């Protein structure tokens, strides 16, 4: 790695984890239903199962237990952030 490498920063996420050009929002962008965006958004209760401990109370990204997979997590689909606002 070059010593002169610029510190990376993503303006979209306000994060130093990656640069603008490697921002997951480039591919993780959902085409949601119109009704899911306004106040009548979905009230369907989610099926929750944690990919790390199996709990039905939280998603894997928010798991309090020690992570089992050795691959680092950069933030995934299975996060409470992916729920409609009023279910979070």
């Amino acid at each position, binding site marked *: 790695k070059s010593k002169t490498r610029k510190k990376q920063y993503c303006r979209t996420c306000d994060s130093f984890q990656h640069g603008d050009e490697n921002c997951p929002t480039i591919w993780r962008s959902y085409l949601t239903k119109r009704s*899911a965006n306004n106040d009548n958004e*979905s009230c369907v209760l989610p099926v929750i199962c944690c990919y790390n401990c*199996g709990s039905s109370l939280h998603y894997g990204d928010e798991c309090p237990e020690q992570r089992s*997979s050795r691959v680092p997590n950069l933030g995934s689909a299975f996060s409470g952030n992916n729920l409609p606002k009023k279910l979070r």
Partner: protein
Amino acid sequence: PSSTLYPWVRNHDHCKQKEIADWLTLEMKDLVNYISPSSEEIITRNRVINTLKKQISIFWPGTEAHVFGSCATDLYLPGSDIDMVVISNTGDYENRSRLYQLSSFLRAKNLAKNVEVIASAKVPIIKFVDPDSNLHIDISFERKNGLDAARRIRRWLSSTPGLRELVLVVKQFLRSRKLNNVHVGGLGGYATIIMCYHFLHSHPKLSTNSMDPSDNLGVLLIEFFELYGRNFSYDNLIISLNPETEEPRYLLKDKNSALNTARNTFSIVIQDPADPTNNISRSSYNLRDLKKAFGGAYQLLVAKCYQLNVAPYKDRLGQSILGDIIKFKGKER
């Protein structure tokens, strides 16, 4: 050069899409169309199947032959085997002499070439090739579980939009990595389908009905690889469906020893929806390569998205996002 390796891209350029995720979704639909059977293939398969069904029932009155597996659910890739099962009224046709009787009959009637009788396997079968179409056929005996599974999968396909596309692309991916053969530790068709079904029904945006899977196939494919290539705890968890509701859930390996021969080992365990003590993926011992392949597919797809996102139009033209993970070998379609 890309047009020969990625024939599904030909005449289907989506490089003008603003969102990379939309480009990938459209490319997935093109790939699914490309690998879906042509009408000639469907006609050939039906002819082969119907001839065999008829001839077997003439040879053995009181039996009926059925198709199961990918051919019964229309989730087959070009050239895939045909799985059939003979069910009799008496239920006693799974024996050595019956297997040899039927194989000689098929050979004599010119319905089979390269016939192999595998009588001593856990599931005894006759393997052969149809002389006209060169399709490979396996016939087993008296086992109804394949038929039950096919019925269940057909029900899932009609209740789960996006399932067919995701399964076909993942199957084609596994095939191009030679990881789809359970005889060498790969992932079988039913296991692949259950993983895709579980993923789609547990996704936060889909289980709350916030988006339409067909509009989001691209991001869902990457997130499937993200879950099973990076995050899922193969050490501790069993992939399972609630037997009453078929809702996805995970069970703990160390609380379900019946399913898990060796505790806390790095193995993939998928509970059979029809038999809670049966592990669908017990033959998939090559989990290390499977997980690596899923994780690698995630990396490659994501890197391609970043690369194409900033590329000028002339460099995007004719490009494929899926091409890095799927090579299509086979005759032109």
